[in-house]
């Protein structure tokens, strides 16, 4: 039927996406899908390749290899993308001399929307009234994020691609945004949301894609990923503990504060420490928090980065 078409299962599909800058691979063979009705948290430390991946999804960065589709098509072949995909990649990338209302008016005109939508969306994000008439120069980062969110929602899209949208929002603002995104997904929308802070995503995401050093290190249902176990262990001399664990054939990841997360039972870890004559200060099963998962999956990458 004209005007309607079947909705693809994956509203965002990323297939073997890679981006190289010379020798350096910013994004290396990344694949994942985002389905309707879900919020996908795209997690990783700063510089992990989240923004580059999102720019490739939105046709702003040409990939070195692989492809990405939105609503079943490459972004560049969407006729009026603002009506299908709401994009917020950098809230500070706005002309400081324009008012909030003017920023949205330009977008509304580009998309062919009634300017009433502008007023409605400004109200939705809490930038109605006086705030809308102020120039972006005078906006706090939190206000710019709200404006960016209004911009993304302007064309009533069915997909949202948001890069670090909680950056600069106060706790109340983060709580509000979570509710908005949860509601958007519950009504059948698809959300891809990046963050380097786990807490921001833990509450709202259904699925997680964790990226480190340009590669996907874990992805799946949030509940599934959180159920995975390990042992948290600390010692006075973390490097000796690490050596002892590695000698015992135990995979280990280090957090910045010297805490190690070992992929083994507490007993095996304790034995390995004893064999290596290392004094432990803490030894317990890792709590099923996203934080520990995140540390486990990305700490190694972070340390590699800092050693470089």
């Amino acid at each position: 039927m004209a005007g309607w078409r079947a909705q693809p299962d994956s509203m965002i599909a990323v297939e073997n996406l890679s981006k190289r800058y010379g020798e350096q691979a910013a994004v290396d063979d990344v694949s994942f899908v985002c389905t309707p009705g879900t919020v996908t948290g795209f997690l990783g430390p700063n510089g992990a390749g989240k923004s580059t991946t999102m720019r490739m999804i939105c046709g702003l960065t040409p990939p070195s290899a692989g492809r990405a589709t939105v609503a079943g098509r490459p972004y560049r072949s969407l006729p009026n993308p603002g009506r299908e995909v709401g994009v917020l990649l950098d809230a500070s990338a706005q002309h400081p001399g324009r008012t909030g209302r003017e920023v949205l008016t330009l977008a509304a005109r580009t998309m062919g929307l009634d300017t009433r939508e502008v007023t409605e969306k400004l109200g939705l994000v809490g930038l109605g009234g006086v705030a809308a008439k102020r120039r972006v120069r005078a906006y706090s980062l939190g206000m710019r994020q709200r404006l960016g969110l209004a911009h993304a929602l302007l064309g009533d899209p069915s997909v949202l691609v948001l890069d670090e949208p909680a950056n600069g929002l106060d706790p109340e603002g983060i709580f509000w945004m979570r509710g908005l995104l949860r509601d958007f997904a519950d009504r059948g929308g698809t959300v891809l949301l990046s963050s380097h802070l786990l807490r921001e995503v833990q509450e709202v995401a259904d699925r997680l894609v964790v990226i480190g050093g340009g590669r996907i290190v874990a992805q799946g249902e949030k509940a599934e990923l959180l159920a995975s176990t390990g042992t948290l262990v600390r010692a006075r001399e973390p490097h000796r503990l690490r050596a002892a664990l590695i000698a015992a054939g135990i995979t280990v990841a280090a957090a910045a504060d010297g805490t190690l997360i070992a992929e083994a039972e507490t007993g095996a870890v304790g034995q390995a420490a004893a064999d290596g004559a290392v004094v432990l200060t803490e030894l317990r099963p890792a709590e099923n928090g996203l934080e520990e998962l995140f540390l486990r999956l990305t700490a190694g990458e972070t340390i590699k980065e800092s050693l470089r």
Partner: protein
Amino acid sequence: MTTMTATPATAGAVRDAGSRPSLLRLTGVELRKLIDTRAGFWLLATIGLIAAGIVAIQLVVGGPADRTFMSFFGASVFAVALLLPVLGILLVTSEWSQRTAMTTFALVPRRERIVVAKIGAGLVAAALSVVASLLVAAVATLLVGVTVGNADWGIDGPGLLNATLFQVLNTLIGVAFGMWLLNSPLAIVLYFALPTVWAMLTGMVSWLRDWAQWLDTTVTMAPLIGPEVTAGQWARLGVSMLVWLVAPMLVGFFRIMRREIS
């Protein structure tokens, strides 16, 4: 905090996303971007003030031969032409210096359409500047009629067309420099510095002097404001435009099409 919610398209089907934005609509948006910031507004205001100022001076100090409608018009066109290239440059480069290119190209991923819309906006701006010059010249001629009498309202049709072309080329050279360099200060500095450097070179190196007539835009474009343009002058104008307009615009087009937007 708010009871309103964001409603996505109904699950199970994608709402018709509407047709691709027309080039006309995109050109309108680009024109709006020219005036919706203080910087843009003041650039336009300055252009208008300079035109009015030059014509006012000519009205006061000019001889009777300078006080004709076409003469006022020519003076205004020359004055406006000083800043039209800057307008053309900023039309393109402000997207990069303010990083709005990200939202612009996210909404219109077919980048060539934005390029065409910006060139279109430049053409409209150039045409409007000619209208403004006509108005300024009319006011000045009216004042001559009231104060001195015997106002010369004679309009030279080809002259008007040539002046319009003059302004269009000035604006497009700016757009081309903007596209080539994608950086406001660099494009503005090079736009003003390169012709001067060229003039200095041709002043110092004798064999370059013949070339100057073919490449120095102040020389090749001047006949457009004069009484008539000869075939040889058209040829020189064409060659100089190849170098100063077509070449940077082509390089810039490929830069914009390939460049990563971040």
